[in-house]
């Protein structure tokens, strides 16, 4: 197995840091521990919560969340190579604590470049070699290596298919959400007023976000949003979600997305898609509150 990645471009380093920051926030709100599984492929990296292994959203209890994220490694990294052990084992899964990785990436601002590789140092580690710029023009740059212990998840323990991208084939309607800033403010204010939020979308591209409590009802109307109707059964679809979960999701997004799409699937869960330039896709699922 061969793995090596390098980031030289400052923008790419920042973007990778934003991605890891997002993963860290997403994991810290998960129901399991704070670990995450990184699946390395020849052209991409996928970040998944361990409990996704059951491959289905746990619909038995409401208010559950899950996420799956893929980044286009060949686009993000300045250099990236991954070769599996064999044709059958063309990817590897490693379990890691994202906050350790984030801590390293945020250590100082004067990063010149960074290299990632897997190394065996007493235990298997994700080894990050960072070259820092010299403090003055004359001084030489310093290199520090951080080793983060990881666990290799064997493919016999968890099937590769358990980590496939969540499918959207049962989607009835997809609508593009309003801008992240507006959404963030609104959800935060609504969180101060109630526990549950209702999201309703129509075939015409109208979206309503509503909370209703004993004391107040607040409804926000968004019109003319890009919409795709996959199943022509109903005129509108609505879902009731926990505001706290919605707020956790919105606040986890540390990258600058091009669009966020809300997919309505059988009213059982909200399947959000956060897309950035085609080089990052984040699926975030929140199961709905059933009355």
């Amino acid at each position, binding site marked *: 197995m061969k793995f090596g990645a390098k980031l030289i471009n400052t923008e790419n380093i920042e973007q990778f840091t934003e991605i890891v920051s997002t993963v860290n926030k997403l994991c810290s709100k998960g129901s399991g521990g704070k670990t995450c599984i990184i699946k390395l492929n020849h052209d991409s990296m996928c970040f998944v919560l361990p409990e996704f292994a059951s491959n289905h959203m746990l619909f038995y209890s409401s208010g559950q969340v899950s996420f799956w994220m893929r980044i286009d490694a060949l686009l993000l990294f300045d250099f990236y190579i991954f070769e599996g052990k064999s044709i059958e084992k063309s990817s590897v899964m490693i379990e890691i604590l994202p906050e350790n990785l984030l801590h390293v990436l945020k250590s100082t601002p004067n990063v010149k470049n960074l290299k990632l590789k897997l190394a065996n140092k007493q235990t298997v580690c994700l080894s990050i070699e960072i070259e820092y710029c010299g403090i003055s023009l004359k001084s030489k740059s310093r290199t520090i290596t951080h080793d983060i212990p990881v666990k290799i998840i064997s493919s016999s323990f968890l099937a590769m298919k358990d980590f496939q991208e969540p499918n959207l084939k049962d989607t009835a309607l997809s609508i593009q959400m309003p801008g992240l800033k507006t959404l963030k*403010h609104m959800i935060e204010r*609504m969180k101060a007023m109630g526990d549950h939020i209702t999201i309703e979308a129509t075939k015409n591209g109208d979206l309503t976000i509503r909370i209703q409590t004993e*004391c*107040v*009802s*607040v409804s926000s*109307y968004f019109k003319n949003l890009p919409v795709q109707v996959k199943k022509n059964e109903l005129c509108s679809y609505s879902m009731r979600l926990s505001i706290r979960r919605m707020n956790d999701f919105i606040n986890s997004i540390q990258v600058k997305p091009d669009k966020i799409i809300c997919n309505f699937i059988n009213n059982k869960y909200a399947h959000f898609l956060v897309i950035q330039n085609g080089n990052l896709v984040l699926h975030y699922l929140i199961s709905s509150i059933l009355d």
Partner: protein
Amino acid sequence: MNTTLITRSNEGEKYLLYAKLDNAKILYNLAKSVNFKEHAVFCALDSGLKISCEDAKSTQGIAFVHTDLFQEYSVKEDCVCIKINLSVLIECLNIFGSIVNSIPTALKICYEGYGHPLSLLLEDNGIITECNIKTMEADSLVNFEFDFDRIINKIIIKSEGLKEALSEIDVSNDIIEIVISIEKQFLRLSSFGLIGDTHIDIPASSDYIESFDCKKTQVNRYKVSFFRNSLKALVSSSKVALRITDSGVMGIQFLIPIPELSKMAFVEFYFCPDEEIE
């Protein structure tokens, strides 16, 4: 200016209270300045909106939004009073957050009458948010009977001066002593903490003091928390008028500039002394 929804002017006809504000932030900031308790009495008078908040019948904060500040304002009865959850009203007014240099959020307030909710319609960049807040019967507020005829001392001070003075007060003790002295011609704020006593003297001749009208020396002690309730108003104000009656009742009036409209608003706080010292 956002005008897509808020254009029909005959619409006000069916409401007991109907008001339009081009910038919801104006009402938001004034309402926030008196939000030291969750509920407040919201009164629509001929002259404007009055938001009154009271704590344990010992202190009262009133924000007044004069009709001048509204683009449209109509009230069908002399005085329409309702009790609402002020914290919720404030969250609603801020639903779009605030992005600097952008077109302000437009607001429309409608109230049909007894049994109906207080309705707020906010518009920002084509997005409309409708809030319906449950209304309750207005409790009778304590009438402080702040007798303007019995004011013994009145000081008008620049807000920065009062801000500075209050920040020096040691809060380990919950009492603040205010002395207005005719002999020494000063305003003294004192606190008596565990470590020692702090006295801050602002002489009448200070640049901060705009007017010092003292008829008799007074020493009064008040709860620090009463002053703390008014901090938000102090921070957004340009001037403060401190007025104390012969029985030591304090009436503070804050002058709040509204730069967007080149107008002013007033927020007032009233509270009784903790003990009287002769």
